[in-house]
């Protein structure tokens, strides 16, 4: 209900006469993928294997109201208001069933142009800037200020575009534990003719020390990464220090900072090469604030800034779009590499300490302007840096408990590598004609995945021995229910408007 009320208020506000002259744009994708083997309707776990069949439903509506309309023949002041509502749930298509609580008011900003400086667009509100999209992955690697509310100025010239902005990223990074995180950033893009573009950008996050603010960065002394992972620091401390009335050492205040740098190279419009986008980003992630442990019925907040300040993420992604036979055959090839490091963690498998890469290729054959055939294949490899993260077999837990390399028993499974291969294909109807990214698009697709991991897709399979004994017939042995292959048929529609 707490989420529902703002949503209802928003819809009521947007239906008022003041919005009568607003333009509406948006995006929707809706699908049904009956999963007859117990999955949740997605072929695999995430977009590393290509977004197709691995994403759920989504909707976005953006309203744009010209307060002072931009006149194409004039350099007079103009201003507009943008409001965007989006979310990943549609009635009947996912577990959220289209509930308004699944939507969020993701962007609200006012822009003004030709204000004080001609050619500069000022923006106040949510800030977002990126160098482009990896369409096959639905990822935007080179983006800055996406998490910041503040003010920015953008200059767009024929050769050079520049953006500079500053604001507060506290509510995005710490939604329930807000503390101000001042965040300046900017980008620069240089264009050489119509064939090459080069861009770079950076963003910093500065969180000051605020003594007495329980959401500000602190570090609890004596808290090791082992304690942090196991959540047994308070119990151990109380055992080692019997009789002390305050069992947790007093945390020390500190400040925190982090940053990211982004890079972009685009080239194309040459023969069959429509365009190639290469994106990169390097992020030093902002430290977390605290975790809570319960001991003897009392909750204790343990501050972890010092244990989460050495997490880095390197991402590289490339997408190549080729028009091999005009109006007959297009090909898009993409690749993604990710390297996540956590220098504080040398003991437990984690999504913060792994590397992965994948390649995806999609071809679309145009039988007619409207009727197309689509084929896509992907190969992906994910590798854990801190031991075994994935379960290749139904009984991997038992095997792993005997592992001499894991005396702390922090590993999750029996493999430190997950390999995934997917193939997808089917019929596409594009009323507006050829183009891999032309929308609207109506698709009937078949997808198949092979993964080294057992049950590598969202599912509702039994998770405990009790459930197993209850739901499996006695004559079915456990090794008969190991699944490395997953198949789906999908009916999908996707539209931009």
């Amino acid at each position: 209900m707490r989420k529902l009320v703002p949503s209802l208020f928003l819809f009521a506000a947007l239906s008022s006469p003041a919005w009568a002259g607003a333009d509406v744009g948006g995006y929707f994708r809706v699908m049904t993928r009956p999963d007859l083997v117990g999955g949740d309707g997605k072929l695999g776990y995430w977009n590393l294997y290509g977004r197709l069949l691995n994403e759920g439903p989504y909707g976005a509506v953006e309203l744009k109201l010209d307060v002072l309309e931009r006149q194409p023949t004039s350099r007079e002041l103009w201003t507009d208001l943008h409001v965007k509502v989006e979310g990943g749930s549609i009635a009947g298509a996912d577990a959220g069933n289209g509930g308004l609580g699944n939507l969020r008011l993701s962007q609200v900003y006012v822009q003004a142009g030709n204000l004080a400086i001609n050619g500069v667009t000022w923006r106040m509100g949510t800030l977002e800037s990126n160098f482009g999209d990896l369409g096959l992955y639905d990822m935007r690697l080179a983006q800055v200020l996406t998490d910041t509310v503040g003010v920015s100025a953008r200059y767009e010239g024929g050769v050079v575009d520049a953006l500079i902005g500053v604001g507060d990223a506290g509510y995005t990074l710490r939604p329930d534990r807000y503390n101000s995180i001042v965040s300046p950033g900017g980008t620069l893009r240089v264009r050489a003719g119509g064939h090459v573009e080069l861009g770079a950008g950076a963003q910093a996050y500065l969180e000051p020390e605020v003594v007495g603010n329980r959401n500000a960065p602190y570090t609890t002394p004596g808290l090791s990464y082992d304690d942090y992972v196991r959540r047994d620091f308070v119990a151990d401390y109380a055992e080692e220090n019997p009789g002390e009335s305050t069992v947790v050492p007093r945390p020390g205040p500190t400040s925190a900072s982090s940053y990211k740098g982004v890079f972009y190279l685009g080239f194309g419009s040459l023969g069959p090469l429509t365009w190639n986008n290469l994106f990169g980003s390097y992020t030093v992630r902002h430290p977390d604030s605290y975790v809570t442990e319960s001991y003897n019925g009392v909750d204790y907040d343990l501050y972890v800034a010092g244990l989460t300040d050495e997490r880095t993420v390197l991402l590289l992604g490339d997408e190549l779009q080729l028009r091999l036979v005009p109006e007959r055959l297009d090909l898009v090839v993409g690749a993604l590499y990710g390297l996540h490091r956590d220098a504080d963690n040398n003991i437990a498998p984690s999504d913060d300490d792994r590397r992965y890469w994948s390649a995806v290729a999609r071809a679309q054959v145009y039988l007619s302007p409207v009727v197309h055939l689509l084929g896509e294949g992907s190969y992906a490899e994910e590798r854990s840096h801190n031991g075994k993260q994935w379960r290749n077999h139904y009984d991997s837990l038992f095997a792993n408990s005997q592992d001499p390399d894991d005396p702390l028993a922090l590993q999750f499974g029996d493999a430190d590598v997950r390999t995934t291969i997917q193939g997808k294909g089917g019929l596409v109807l594009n009323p507006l004609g050829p183009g891999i990214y032309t929308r609207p698009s109506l698709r009937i697709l078949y997808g198949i995945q092979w993964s080294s991991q057992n049950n590598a897709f969202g599912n509702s399979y039994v998770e405990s021995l009790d459930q197993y004994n209850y739901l499996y017939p006695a004559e079915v042995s456990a090794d008969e229910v190991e699944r490395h292959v997953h198949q789906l048929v999908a009916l999908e529609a996707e539209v931009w408007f």
Partner: protein
Amino acid sequence: MWPFLLFACVPRAELVTARAPTPVELVVVTQPAGSRAPTDAPASVYSAIEAVLSARLLTPTRVDSAVFSESFSTRRSTAQRLSWLAARPGDTVLVLVETEVEYYSEMNGRYRWTVSVVASVLPPDRPLEAVEASFEIPVFLSFYHEREDKALEAAVPVLSRRLGELVDTWVAGQTGG
């Protein structure tokens, strides 16, 4: 899957064609941002519009932008422009397509543009028989460097459909069917 293929065989709506080949003068105007002088539309847009007209037995002749650019920079309403075109010698039917392309925003990795179109068909000697339609076409481009011309090209499928409907209306009025 096979039932979907039947969509490829669905017959198209019958076009309304002129009784005999009819010459028309075609003017396609694009208003660039920040400039008073309109420019020519991309060649592919011209070609698509010519195909729409030819399919209805209208024979288009392009009017070069050098002819109208200066006059249209001061005559910015459709009525003023039609009036100026009609005042020129001759009584060839005029087809004026005015476009304006405006950036909307970046949405989920795509760049949304709005193409506003005002299309008019005017027989200079019978101004009361003129027909006009105005509409907006949202288009989504994949790349930031793709600008107004690309947006206009991306709008061609819808522009052709809407212009065809307008021309059908006018031709039907001439032929009585």
